């Protein structure tokens, strides 16, 4: 290793984490380096404090988030008929490189099915419907690859949901 060259091409650790999180994500794994650089110039980096809500259940969703650093709790909120108060139930805890909210990319005015809350100081990469439109508009080749990624994710989710429904059916049949 040459310390001079290392110093010239040294990347800010936060930037490096963000670049890697994008590169590892299934939506963008078909992209070349130039494509990834283009996506990096479009996405939005947001920092959340511990306990800060990313979005609320029932809100209209605009897009998805990839966790670059930190943790996010996904909570299902239910109204208690006895007290009339909202009760939260932890559905999942997501960590670095996980992503959530991707359904909002393909549904018009779709509501968030759960609440997302940052557990600790968290860096999120926001990728929204308007960003997807912009990419399709400016570079259709990259847009198609990302749409292919979205389709794969949705296909995987559908398979998982079907498996859960079949399991429930089997349990009910016994």
């Amino acid at each position, binding site marked *: 290793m040459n310390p001079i060259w290392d110093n010239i091409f040294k990347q800010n650790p936060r930037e490096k984490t963000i670049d890697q999180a994008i590169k590892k994500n299934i939506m963008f794994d078909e992209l070349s380096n130039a494509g990834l650089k283009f996506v990096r110039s479009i996405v939005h980096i947001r920092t959340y404090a511990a306990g800060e809500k990313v979005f609320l259940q029932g809100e209209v969703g605009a897009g998805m988030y990839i966790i670059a650093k930190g943790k996010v709790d996904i909570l299902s909120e239910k109204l208690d008929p006895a007290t009339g108060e909202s009760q939260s139930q932890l559905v999942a805890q997501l960590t670095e490189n996980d992503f959530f909210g991707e359904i909002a990319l393909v549904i018009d005015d779709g509501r968030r099915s759960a609440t997302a809350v940052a557990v600790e100081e968290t860096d999120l990469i926001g990728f929204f419907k*308007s960003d997807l439109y912009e990419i399709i508009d400016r570079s259709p080749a990259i847009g198609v690859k990302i749409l292919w990624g979205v389709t794969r994710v949705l296909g995987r989710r559908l398979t998982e949901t079907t498996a859960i429904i079949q399991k429930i059916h089997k349990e009910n049949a016994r």
Partner: protein
Amino acid sequence: MSNQRIRILQRRQLLFLLVSIAILIFVVLSVPNLFLSMVFGLTGYYLLAPAADYLERRGLNRAIATLIPFTLVAFLIIFGLVVLIPKLTTQIAAFQKQLPEMSLAIEGLFHKFQAKLQSIAPAAVLDVSTDHIKNLLSGWGQGIFEKLPEHLSNSLTVLFLSPLLVLYFLMDGRKFIRNLLRMVPNSFFELALDLQHQLGFQFGGFIRARLLETVILTIALWIGFFAIDFPYALLLAILGAVLNLIPYLGPLISAVPAFILALVQGGDSTVLLQLTFIYVGSQVFDAVVLVPFLVGRIVNLHPLIVILSIMVGAQAMGILGMVISIPLASAIKVISQALYTHLTEIRQGSG
């Protein structure tokens, strides 16, 4: 971090953002010519952005994709001015020559009108003399010449600043918006992003639609005036189409000079009828074909809101205010609807 601390932090971020936007608006409105240059700059940006985006899609980098349509349009404008200005100058010079004749003819018309008025109501008197009209016309002329250096310097500033702003918006507009979005608190971020997208789409669509409407109307009016061999056809067609940008009032104002001209030239009822047909016909064509297909899809405002916003625009900024009042009213509608939905959602979510 406690919920209260998060809320305080978000409020501070929101306050900082709102103060920044207020300062930006204050600077734009208070620096002379900046607002008008911004209006022209944004108009140019929304007209050229599709071409620049198309070239970028074809693989060119943004700077080249911006410079190609910009240079082409600049050449077209210069070429158009070179062709149109001599024609317009001839028509304006001819119009100036006719001014004394016109003052006499207007006086004659007023005398006829006075005679008719007195036959109906003998007490009514209209004090109209040749001197009165001459004073009025020379007053206007003097006013224009006295203010000419000021108008010229303002026009030159706008003329130089607007193309620079178009270039800046085309090349770095997205970066500017992204930097502004970075300042938005997390709880409002998705809303702000969605609004920015909607407003950009609406402004772009509106400006492109109105420009196309103006060009089509200019051609339609020009054909009309040309068909009846009416003088100053190009001048009146451009005036008619440009003033048409002011809803309701614009078409009425634009028809006045043509009718005065027809009356002054001793126009018989046939010419007046032909003119009425041209103006009413162009308005019907605009209302039935152009507005529903071009503008109506983009701006969906109640007619009462349109009239009110024009009145407010006229009070605040005169003719420019009247022209920009509709897209601004439309933007306010989109923003208030989105804010209302967002706030009621938050209440539902927290409740």
